Each structure stands twice: as structure tokens, then as C-alpha cells.
């Protein structure tokens, strides 16, 4: 596992469309539920425990599902995967000498995509997640050899597949998902509320161990059937997203 690669994947500067989304914060700010640093702290904790946990679990699961497959030759690393899958599928094409890297194939992960649909009652949030999944795939294709997983997967599914293609494991995928859940909304908070950016980063530092905990519990269940993966929900986020989508004037796409 390459730590520097994980940092790259989790970097807010990755051009993957995230800057246009507040992760539901704009709707809550406008409703008067979040107005200062304490409010943001509560919002981020709630998000991490609900949609953050779900995103981490699905990123870990998507990564886990692709673990047994062969990454392209230039990505194959000596390190064995941290979480060996239960059954190891074979690569679609056996290697035919150096000039033909093994074809990289992904087992069917459409149930994960559907599982996220089921956990995302708000159509606006589904759309936002798929738009970000598509953008993340675009960035991923420029960085690593990404298998074909459809045009607009949910963002956590895309993240898990990217993590695998980058040579990372389910725990790293989950950490990146949990971290992205809080940092995206936090930087939107700086822009929406004019909060002190140092204070916001102080908050993020205090939340980091929680991100790790959420990611660890998500990664521990990465091999579970989709129906047994976490399904924590935050109804106010869903309601807020639906209202937000109807506004004529808004700063963020979601």
C-alpha cells in the first residue's frame, strides 16, 4: 500500500467535481440549523455517523469485490491484499507475455450501486452522488487503469474501484470516503458562513480519529452481502436536498 497514493486519492484538489457540492450543508445553513462552528461540528458528526458510514462501507465493499482480480501489470505490487476475498476470481485474460498485461476485470458490482440507491431516498442526492462518481471516474482514468464499471456509478462505488486500481485496500478506500464526507462539507462551511478556516481545520483534526473509527468498522464489513452493509440515514439531509434542488438561486449544486 502506498501512503502517498492514498493522499492523492483523498486530496480535495483531485479534480473530481466535489468543489461544487456542499454535502447538504447549504440547505441546513439556509434553514438556520447550522450557523457557526459548533453547528458545523454537530453537522459533520451527524454526517459522518450516517452517510459517512454508508459511503465508507460501500467504498470498502467495492474495493473488496475487486481485490481478487489482477490489476494491470504496471500496478501489480508485491504486497498481498490486506483483506483477501473469500473466493478469488481469475483474471479474464491470462497474461501472454510481457507485452500483454492481464486484462483487469471487475466482478458485477451493480448490487452495490443499487444498494446505495436504496439507501438514498432523495432523488437529488442520488443525482449528486452519481454526478460525482462520474467525475471521479474521469479523474481516476487519467491516473490509473480503471475497469469498465458503467458511466455514472455512485461516488462511493467509484471511489472503491479507484482505490483498488491504485493498489489500495478496503480500509484505505473507507478512510478516503469518510475523510471526503467531512472535508467537503467543511470547506463549503468556510465559504457559506465565512468561518475561520483555522478553526474549521481544528475541528477536522478533532474529527480525524472518528473518521478512522468509522472507516475501520466499515472495512471490517466489506465482504458482507449488500443488504447487510450499513444503512444509516439522515432524513433531514434528504429533505434538505429535495428543497435545495428547487431553489432558483444557490451557491452549490447540492
Amino acid at each position: 500500500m502506498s501512503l502517498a497514493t492514498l493522499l492523492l486519492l483523498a486530496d480535495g484538489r483531485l479534480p473530481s467535481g466535489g468543489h461544487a457540492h456542499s454535502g447538504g450543508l447549504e440547505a441546513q445553513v439556509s434553514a438556520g440549523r447550522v450557523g457557526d462552528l459548533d453547528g458545523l461540528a454537530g453537522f459533520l458528526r451527524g454526517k459522518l455517523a450516517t452517510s459517512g458510514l454508508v459511503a465508507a462501507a460501500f467504498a470498502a465493499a467495492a474495493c473488496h469485490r475487486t481485490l481478487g482480480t489482477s490489476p494491470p501489470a504496471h500496478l501489480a505490487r508485491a504486497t498481498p491484499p490486506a483483506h483477501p476475498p473469500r473466493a478469488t476470481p481469475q483474471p479474464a485474460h491470462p497474461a501472454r507475455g510481457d507485452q500483454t498485461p492481464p486484462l483487469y476485470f471487475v466482478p458485477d458490482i451493480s448490487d452495490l450501486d443499487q444498494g446505495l440507491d436504496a439507501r438514498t431516498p432523495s432523488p437529488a442526492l442520488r443525482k449528486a452522488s452519481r454526478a460525482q462518481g462520474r467525475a471521479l471516474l474521469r479523474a481516476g482514468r487519467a491516473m490509473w487503469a480503471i475497469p469498465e464499471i458503467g458511466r455514472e456509478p455512485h461516488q462511493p462505488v467509484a471511489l472503491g474501484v479507484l482505490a483498488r486500481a491504485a493498489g489500495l485496500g478496503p480500509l484505505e478506500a473507507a478512510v478516503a470516503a469518510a475523510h471526503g464526507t467531512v472535508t467537503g462539507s467543511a470547506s463549503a462551511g468556510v465559504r457559506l458562513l465565512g468561518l475561520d478556516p483555522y478553526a474549521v481545520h481544528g475541528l477536522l483534526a478533532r474529527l480525524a480519529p472518528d473518521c478512522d473509527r468509522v472507516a475501520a468498522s466499515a472495512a471490517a464489513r466489506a465482504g458482507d452481502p449488500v443488504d447487510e452493509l450499513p444503512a444509516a440515514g439522515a432524513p433531514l439531509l434528504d429533505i434538505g436536498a429535495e428543497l435545495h434542488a428547487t431553489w432558483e438561486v444557490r451557491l452549490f449544486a447540492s
Partner: protein
Amino acid sequence: MHPDQHTHAHEADEVPHTHPEPGVDPHLPLPDAPRALRIGIGGPVGSGKTALVAALCRALGDELRLAVVTNDIYTTEDADFLKRNGVLPVERIRAVETGCCPHTAIRDDISANLDAVEDLEDALGPLDLVLVESGGDNLTATFSKGLIDQQIFVVDVAGGDKVPRKGGPGVTTADLLVINKTDLAPLVSADLSVMDRDAKARRGELPTVFLSLVEDRAATPVADWIRSLVAARVPAAR
């Protein structure tokens, strides 16, 4: 999937099909025209970017396969304006939401704009020209080369005749600088010759044109500049 049984993977419910002889290329030949020329239109809020896009649609809509992507800061107002004014069929216009940061969407993270261009090409078939209007920002916002081929920067006379002298990457490096609203020059005591001299000093060989979209509703010098780019790009197909 059971990839170990096959030379390649099949879905269980896949329609049975045959494969061409190895050696036979199953793909259609690439279309003889390359992908659409993409032109970015940037510049400060209110300088006339949307008005220029509307003028170009009127001027070029009948001769080129054309589509437009707008980037608004808060709303889909620019796209709505173009749709309301009927300068282009609505399915040829897409709006991108930029999350507070219009310059990010055209420069640092261009994914939403690329998705919009791709969606237009998927829906409409091959295009000759895609115009991408940036959300109004300051003088520093320029487009990524990953998004557009050429960029136009629009400033206006009403902002004062010092704008070209102040420079900034838009004024200095844009492939075409448009100084718009020349009809207002007398009202704001702007000296066009000063703007011309300063623009030349800043831009060297790069072209600058003066425009009044009130007087020239077809944006003739800009439309001609685009025509020459399109012609240079597709010598055989046009």
C-alpha cells in the same frame, strides 16, 4: 461472471453473438471530422459574454453544428436567457453549476464542464463548435487547456479604458481579446485608442477586436475569427 471459462467475460443474460475474424477490425472508422472545436468565453461579470454567445448563435447557428455550455455562479440564468431568446434550440444548451467558484469549474476541476460537453455530443451527434461561457469572475480567470482549444476574453468599455493596461492573464493571454460596448465609450469618457495601444503592448501579436453588440448583433469580427478557426481545423470535411 466466469471469466476463467472464456477468452473474455460474458454476462449471464447477454444476448448470444458472434465475433468477427481476428484481424477484422469490428469498429466503425472514425468520423472524418475531429471532435468539435471548443471555445471558452471568459471575462468579468456584465462585460457581455452571454450577449456575445447569443450573437454568435444567431450568426453561426445555421452554418455550424453548434452547442453551448454556460457556467453560472448561482443560477442557470445565462442558460435561461439563451433559451428564452430562442437563439439556439434548448437541447443545444447546458448549464453547469459551479459551487461558489466559477474559475475552479473552468480551470482547476473541469469535470462538470467536460461531462456537459460529452452529454451534448452524445445527445446531438457530432458537433463543429461548442462555446463554453464562464461564470463571471475577475480578471484572473482563464480556461484550462484540458477543456477548451481557444479562449476569448471579453472586457467592456464601461469598465474604464484602464482595463487592458491592468492586464491579468485573461487580457494578456487570451487567443482573442474582445473590447465590448464601444457604443458606451462617449458616455464614460473612455478613449478607445488608449485601450488599443495598451492591448497591443500587453498582447503582442495576439488579436484584439472592438465590438458593440448593440450596433453589431451578429458580432461580425468574432464570428469571422471563429469561422477561420473552424475552416483551418476541418480542411477536407467542409
